[in-house]
Structures are given as C-alpha cells and as structure tokens.
C-alpha cells in the first residue's frame, strides 16, 4: 500500500546563538491511509518539530531531507496545508485568535480555501460534528468564553473544515482534565472512522497512544528509537527507552508494581552524546553503545539499539 505521507531522513536544525542545534535527526516516518500513528516522546524529543517542519511551518529552521512524499509524489506544503493535511496546534488555549468569534475563525478557513456554499451553515455543521452543543449560538462566542475542552473541539472543527485526508493532532489532550481527554480522543476516533481520515497523534502520554493508535513511533533526543504496531511496542518493547517509559507508568493490571523512573534527564539539544543518544541513561549500557546506532529491523518493527535483537 502506498503511504499517504512518507518522510525520509528528515533533519531539522535550529539556529541559536551557540550555533545550529540538532532538533530532529534522520527521521523516517510513514503514515498509511486510514491508520492512526502515535508519536510518543518527552518534551524536546522532536515530535512537534518533525511535523511542523514537514508542513513548512518552521521558517527559521534549516531543514534537510531525502524527500517528503504525499501520496507518492513530492509534497508541496503550501498547497496542502489546511486542505488535505490539517494540523491542530499544541495549545488550544492560545491557538484560537482571541479577537475573533469562533464562527469567524471557522468561516475564515473555508474562505481561505474558497469553499463554496453557505459558510455559516457549514460552520454550524462542523461545530455540531465535533460535539459542541447549541452550535448556532456558539458561532458568536469568543474563545475566552469556551472551556478548554470546547476550545480543543473548536480547533478540531477548524482543522476539519476542508475534510483533510490527514489530521496531525499535536498534544490534543494537554491541559485537559481526564474525562475531557477521553471525550476528545473519542471524538477523534469517531471522526477517523466516519471520514476514513488518517491521524497522527503526537503525545507524551503513552496511555493515550496505547488506547488509540494502530502504530507507535517512540522518539528520543530527536531520533526515532522504536517503531512498530502499538500492541507489540507496548507489550514487548525492543528499546530500553520504551521499556523505561512503560515501567515509569502505572499499570492497571498490576497497580502494586513499583514505578521505575528512567535515571538522569534528556541531554540538551546540541550536546547529544556522540554514540547512542540514550546510552548515558541506559541500564543495559555496553561498549558497543559508544558508536552511533541505526534503526535495526526487529520482528514487527524496528529499534535503534545494538541489543534490539537480544531483548
């Protein structure tokens, strides 16, 4: 099957006073039609930068790639953004324009892409679709009048305005309480099923990815350290970082199990270790870890670890 979106050897570097800093390194990703890909990692691991760079939204960054393909052809982000690929930003609380009514902002998207028909009716339909009650009235609300969950829904409504084939949801559940998180994730699942849309779910929350994704890509220090079907990654992780993430997360099956945090902290971008970037924090550190690691194919996926085959 041809992937919908295919990223090859993406490298993103940001200019800083201290020189170019590597934020994303050699990332390969595929998103297939209809699937949900979870991109998991802690803050600064390069999850958001990967997709912002893909969509051409990092004007100040230096971006190198062996190619980014959309439906098998070279991707022109300016032509696809908002039309076939939509992105909801990390912070729904600030990503809506405070000076404009919700309806204006939805209609604006429709106008930006010259969508015909009655824009007001379309906006109402979109709000109803994302489960906002009394949509005709909410059109006239300002963002500050909506709750966090409502704003996230409004963001999703804006993203859905042009019926995209791929929705990239960057931390859609951050800053929402748990019940609202569940509602938003439910909504995304329903929308995906109804529209046959692909979804990239960027999250730092393994549980969120576990419950919603077909495949998972784990990122650490700007690199993908492990990919594979969600079930496999979560049950038999091949990379010690994934193992560490799972162990530091409470489990419903064994609530008494001690939580084991990963020692140390993520290194500063620009000061990555020369070998395996996870080596300084790794419990299975061996001599071979001093050399840079490549993604090794393992049953059902790949892992960037010299012991991936053994584990």
């Amino acid at each position, binding site marked *: 099957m041809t992937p919908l979106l295919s990223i090859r050897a993406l490298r993103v570097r940001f200019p800083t006073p201290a020189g170019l800093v590597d934020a994303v390194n050699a990332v390969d990703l595929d998103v297939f039609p209809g699937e949900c890909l979870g991109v998991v990692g802690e803050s600064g691991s390069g999850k958001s930068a990967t997709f912002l760079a893909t969509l051409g*939204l990092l004007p100040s960054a230096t971006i190198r790639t062996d190619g980014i393909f959309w439906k098998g052809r070279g991707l022109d982000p300016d032509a696809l953004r*908002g039309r076939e690929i*939509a992105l909801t930003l990390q912070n729904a609380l600030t990503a809506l324009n405070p000076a404009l009514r919700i309806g204006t902002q939805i209609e604006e998207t429709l106008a930006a892409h010259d969508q015909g028909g009655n824009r007001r009716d379309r906006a109402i339909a979109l709000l109803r679709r994302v489960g906002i009650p009394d949509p005709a009235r909410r059109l006239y609300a300002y963002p500050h009048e909506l709750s966090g969950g409502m704003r996230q829904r409004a963001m999703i409504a804006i993203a859905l305005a042009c019926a995209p084939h791929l929705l990239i949801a960057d931390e859609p559940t951050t800053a929402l309480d748990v019940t609202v998180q569940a509602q938003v994730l439910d909504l995304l699942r329903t929308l995906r099923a109804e529209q046959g849309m692909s979804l990239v779910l960027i999250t730092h929350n393994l549980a969120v990815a576990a419950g919603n994704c077909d495949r998972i890509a784990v990122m650490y220090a700007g690199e993908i350290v492990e990919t594979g079907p969600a079930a496999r990654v979560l049950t038999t992780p091949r990379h010690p970082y994934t193992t560490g993430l799972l162990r530091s997360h409470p489990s419903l099956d064994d609530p008494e199990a001690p939580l084991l945090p990963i020692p140390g902290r993520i290194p500063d971008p620009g000061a990555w270790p020369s070998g395996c970037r996870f080596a300084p924090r790794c419990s299975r550190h061996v001599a071979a870890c001093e050399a840079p690691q490549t993604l090794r194919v393992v049953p059902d996926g790949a892992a960037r670890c010299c012991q991936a085959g053994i584990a």
Partner: protein
Amino acid sequence: MSASLALSPGTLAFRHFRRDPLAFACALFLLMVALIAIAAPAIAPHDPADADLLRRLQPPVWMSGGDWSYPLGCDGLGRDILSRLIYGARISLGIGVFVVALATVIGATLGVLAGFVRGLPDALLSRIADILLGFPYLVFAIGLMGMMGPGLSNIIITLVLKEWVVAFRVARGETLAAREQDYVEAARAIGCRRARIMRDEVMPNILSPVVVVATIRMANVIIMEASLSFLGLGVQPPAVSWGGMVADGRDVLAGGWWVSTFPGLAIMLVVIAANLASQGLREAFDPRLRQ
C-alpha cells in the same frame, strides 16, 4: 450561559466608556461640536465673511455697545465672531478627523506589513519613520507648507506625511508581538496566506491601541492646524479656521480682546475634550485598567 456571550470587545469597551462620566461628557461635547460644524450653514446667524466696518470691533453682548445679533462681538473687519467660530469648527475638526483617519489607515497598514514581513521593507519603513520623527513637527510643517504653498489640501498632505509615523510605530510594535502568537501559527497551519493572516488575524488584535493613539493624536493635529493657520500657512480666506481667527485678533488685541480669545478658547476646549475622551477610551480598551 453568561450574559456577556456574544459581546464583542468593542461593545464591552463602549459599555465601560459610557460609565466614565468625564470621558463620556467630553465625547458628547466633541460630537456636539461636530454636529455644529456639519450644520454650520443652518446654525450660523450671519455669513462668516460678511464684513461691515461700521461694526468693527463691536464687543460681546454683555459689554456696553454689544447687542444680541452679534453675541460674541465682531472682529476687526466687523465679521460676526460666533458665525466664524461655527464655520471654523468645520476646518479645525474636519482636518483633525480627516488627517488622523488617513494617517492611521496608512500608518497601521504599513506598520502591520513591516512588523509581519520584517526584513528589507521593515528596515526601509522604520528608517523613514525615524527620519520623520527626527524633524521637529512645526519645522517640518512650515518647511513643507512653504514649499507647496498654503491651502487646504496641502495642509492635509503635510500633516498626514508627518502623522502616519505614529500609527506606524504603534502598529508595527504590536504586530511584532502578535506575529509570534500561537493563533498566527495556527492560521498558517490551516493554510491561510500571509495577506489574509495580516488582515484577518493580526489587524483585529492590534486595533485597539491604534484607535486609542489616533484619538490622542487628533488633539495634536488640531493644534498643528491652528498653529499653521496662525502663521498664515494654513487655509486661506475666505475659509475660516480657528488658528487664523487668533491671528486676525493679534493686531487688535488692545482694543478687542474677544477677537482672539474666543477662537483660542474653542481650540483649548476641543483639545482638552479630545485628550480626556481618548484617555477614557484607553482605559475602556485595556482590561487591566478597567475597575
């Protein structure tokens, strides 16, 4: 649902403004002057250019020798001061409003452009603005009016040329802050082009400081016009302006103080009202200053 649903920031600001008695009174005063200016031909008791040397320096009604048909007296050529004040409001207020409106539209547009696009356009426009700011206002205006010659359109051109810088700098500064906001990135993420982002996303967010500054500048422009007219570089007779009336009275100050005093008073009242109203407007638009 809260009662404030569906109220725009402008509506909220207006509600607050209405509760500020001093600022609201000043705004009403300005509105009244504006209405008088518009209705001048219907209101003015006499033709403002109707000279009669028999009425030369006739004093106001409450002084001996004054009468009710010329309540504020007559000037050195026997023209009715009240009528001239009423007609003069057209020039003073008209120029104030028109110059500020034009300068604000030009300045804000260029400011958003410079702040959003950055780079060469920004550097170029900002340097031009710096140079213009370096000129003392009156020197700039006198120099330019001297070159172009007096007249209504020239005075407008001169004042706009100097005045757009104010709106430009405010709009540019606000845009620099607004362009880094998440909603701008979100707009780009949904595929909005730059022109649309500037017009539909950035503009509404920077509008209130620009509007507030414009009202403050109106008082300034009215004084500038009066100064230029006082110096003889403004509108030319038979058109009447308050600054010109003050100048007319200068020669007869010893025998008829009222000729200069009343237009001077009018300038002062309008300028004070504009300043106080704009202060109220600033508070109304800034949630931090609302009580």
